[in-house]
């Protein structure tokens, strides 16, 4: 007995020694829904998947610029309807399955083809994000993809129904990690759940998933890219931002994301921590419903926009973790903004009051202002922000009644006629193209929450989608920018920089604006 105890202690000591050499612990905001690529959209799933899988196209550290991933190169025909991807050779999945054109087509068919037996749609798989970003599924008129074919073992050709110049950006989005066909077939509809390994070609290999608690990964020693120097990566699921901060300060996790903006001071005052401002790739905005009897008048909407001091609100609630501009697009995409639109909204309560009077409401009116009950990356603290907006509006005579609902109900009711008068919502981008932002709220498949759908915008969006290169896209998006700015239906309030933080010994972490990055370049420099 005594001997076993001693051995146990020795093992523990050894284990602890190994720990100091390099176990990296990430405090994740929650548990992944699934590790099956193409079937989820939540950040907690994507950040883990990003370590296990590679995508065809990758992004340069900290930017949305394309670099080779599992595809070494890609070319398109003139009208961007045929895309040919040359694949990387000598890459193996973690289970030894060779990566090739067949593997790519296998994955794409699961996402795209409703009849594909390995898509397990009959068992509740929905591949929702594919339909969202790629227009629809095989056999549907709206599907952007027409066919995917193997040219040879290392060449795949995608033929599209219409020109889609950002196809590589979309197929490279973190949702579309390439999974091992062998592993998928073996696990069937159970693939990606805690008891079953997820198998990709990525820098880390899935080890274990203890539900409700953590996921362990180990480095892929034969990774084609930068091999990680760590011994292990652990994702711990810690729902509360305040709890994540406590863990970080106690040193039980090494780095984390999505802290409250208010925590910046605390992080900075702790000499063991480094605050990390993630690049902004979102927009938080106020959405006005044009079917409301007051808001149908553009003058009223412009008055509302002018009455809200967005700069000050951002300053008050985000400090340096937010930026306000007069665009729906985050600063990364400034190239697509119009020169005719001011860089910032005009804040002019007097002019706003005059506009209201011109619209026939010199004494203002009353409406509801809805704010979400949950913290989102673009509105971490919705209620006080809503209060500030309401206070601004009352200065021009508009009485805004603050209202909220459970998140699921909120999302549903905004689209149910008559919808909300005025509500707070936002968008986190998937890929670095203005279409991803504009189409989400102004496109043909957008929400019905504002009842604002001019055909002119739809046509411009379709044109911009098919335009090749920034120089062709920029003028089209500039027009879209002008129209939406003048309409004042969706009033951008903020582009936030989500607050992340790390212990000072965490080196080489470059957060991606797209929301997830591989941890293979991270090293631990003197972790105790």
């Amino acid at each position, binding site marked *: 007995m005594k001997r076993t*105890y001693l051995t*146990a*202690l020795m093992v*523990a000591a050894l*284990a*602890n020694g*190994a720990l100091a050499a390099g*176990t990296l*612990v990430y405090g994740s905001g*929650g548990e992944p*829904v*699934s590790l099956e690529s193409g079937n*989820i*959209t939540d950040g907690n799933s994507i950040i883990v998947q990003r370590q296990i899988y590679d995508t065809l196209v990758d992004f340069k550290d900290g930017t949305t610029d394309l670099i080779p991933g599992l595809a070494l190169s890609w070319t398109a025909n003139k009208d961007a309807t045929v895309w040919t991807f040359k694949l990387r050779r000598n890459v193996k999945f973690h289970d030894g399955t060779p990566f090739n054109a067949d593997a790519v087509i296998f994955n794409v068919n699961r996402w795209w083809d409703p009849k594909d037996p390995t898509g397990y749609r009959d068992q*509740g*798989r*929905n591949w*929702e994000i594919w*339909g*969202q970003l790629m227009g629809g599924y095989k056999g549907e008129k709206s599907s952007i993809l027409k066919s995917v074919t193997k040219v040879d073992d290392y060449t795949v050709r995608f033929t599209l129904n219409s020109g889609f110049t950002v196809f590589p950006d979309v197929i490279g989005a973190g949702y579309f990690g390439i999974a091992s066909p062998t592993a998928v077939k073996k696990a069937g*509809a*159970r693939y*990606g*759940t*805690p*008891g079953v390994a997820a198998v990709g070609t990525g820098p880390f290999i899935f080890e274990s998933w*203890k*539900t*409700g*608690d*953590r996921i362990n990964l180990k480095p892929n020693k034969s990774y084609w890219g930068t091999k990680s120097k760590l011994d292990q990566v*652990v994702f*711990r*699921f*810690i*729902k*509360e931002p305040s*709890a994540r901060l*406590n*863990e970080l300060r*106690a040193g*039980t996790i090494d780095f984390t994301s999505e802290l409250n903006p208010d925590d910046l001071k605390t992080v900075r005052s702790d000499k063991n921590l480094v605050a990390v401002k993630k690049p902004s790739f979102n927009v938080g905005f106020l959405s006005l419903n044009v079917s409301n009897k007051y808001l149908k008048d553009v003058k009223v909407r412009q008055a509302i926009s002018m009455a809200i001091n967005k700069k000050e609100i951002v300053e008050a609630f985000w400090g340096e973790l937010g930026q306000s501009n007069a665009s729906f697009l985050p600063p990364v995409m400034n190239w697509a903004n119009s020169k005719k639109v001011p860089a910032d909204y005009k804040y002019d309560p007097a002019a706003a009051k005059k506009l209201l009077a011109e619209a026939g409401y010199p004494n203002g009116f009353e409406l509801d202002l809805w704010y979400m009950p949950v913290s*989102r990356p673009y509105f971490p603290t919705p209620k006080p922000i809503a209060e500030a907006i309401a206070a601004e509006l009352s200065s021009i005579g508009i009485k805004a009644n603050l209202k909220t609902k*459970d*998140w*699921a*109900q*909120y*999302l*549903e*009711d905004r*689209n*149910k006629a008559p919808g909300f008068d005025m509500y707070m919502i*936002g*968008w*986190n981008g998937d890929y670095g193209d203005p279409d991803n932002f504009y189409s989400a709220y102004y496109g043909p*498949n*957008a*929400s*019905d929450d504002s009842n604002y759908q001019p055909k002119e915008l739809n046509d411009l969006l379709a044109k911009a989608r098919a335009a090749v290169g920034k120089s062709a896209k920029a003028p089209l998006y500039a027009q879209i920018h002008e129209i939406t700015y003048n309409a004042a239906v969706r009033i951008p309030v903020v582009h936030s920089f989500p607050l992340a933080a790390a212990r000072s010994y965490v080196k080489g972490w470059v957060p991606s604006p797209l929301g997830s990055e591989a941890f293979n370049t991270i090293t631990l420099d003197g972790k105790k």
Partner: protein
Amino acid sequence: MSAYIFKRLLRMVTVVIGISLVVFGFVRMIPGDPAVVILGERGSPEQVAALREKLGLNKPVFLNFQEPSELFDTQYFRFAGQVLRGDLGEGIQSRIPVTDQLRNRFPATLELSFWALTFAVLVGLPAGIIAALNRNRPLDNLAMTISLIGVSMPVFWLGMLLAYFFSVVLGWLPPSGQLSTGLSIEPITGLYILDGLLRGRLDVAWDAFKHVILPAVALGTIPMAIIARITRSSMLEVLGQDYVRTARAKGLARNRVVVKHALRNAMLPVITIIGLQAGVLLGGAVLTETIFSWPGLGSYIYQGIFERDYPVIQGGVIFAAVIVSLVNLLVDLSYAILDPRVHYS
């Protein structure tokens, strides 16, 4: 006795079926279903409707009056059919079988509940007894004030305070989780402390114990306060009884009277309360588990409710109902052992 148990179990089945119907109806009455949550900001009405269809959420809930030939082709009867086969379905989006999740998570809840209750009894019971013996003196007031604070302090607030103070400021205890990241153990029972001891991994047992302290104190505070109050009033009642006075008059020492005569009789209502509390705790402590990232039933059901994951909510609630019913049955049976006046026949 066995006839009684059989009757009780039969009643339990009825209760569970009733609860399954209620939960099933209620979760579907809440606006905002899984399709909405899955799509989040992305969901246009058309997309939500399409996803609903994919998820089978557009079938009638209880009875299909549209198609009398398929009267029972409804969400409820599909579910009931599954349950009879011991299958509670899968998480709507994660596709993880609910039974697997319950099996994986229940040990964590059991462990936390056990320590929370241990804390509640070890502190609440003596506090109640001391208060009763020192009725209306400073000690009594002190004990009752503490229990009042305990009852009125919101558990999430207390949890955050504890985590901040003991782990961030003092660095004595881990702020959340069940086990340090450097440690792992092949489970036997799934109870980390016990498994650590069984496998001779004292380091694991000690580490797991350190992790359970704060959540157990946070979770055990309200039951502790309740136990203290019930113990006090029950003790006072017994101490005023004739037989206690007689025992004292016979010249028995006070302590002996308290321990031998009063305590045993005063314990009956306290046992009931402890049992009820155990049932409540075993159903999963939503807030405490969420704050302390404790991988138990509570955080699982909470997540399920938030995501409108019907199978998770149904399965979790039905499981909790079974557990609570069983614990209540055990409490009633222990009554018969403790109180000779009670007979189940």
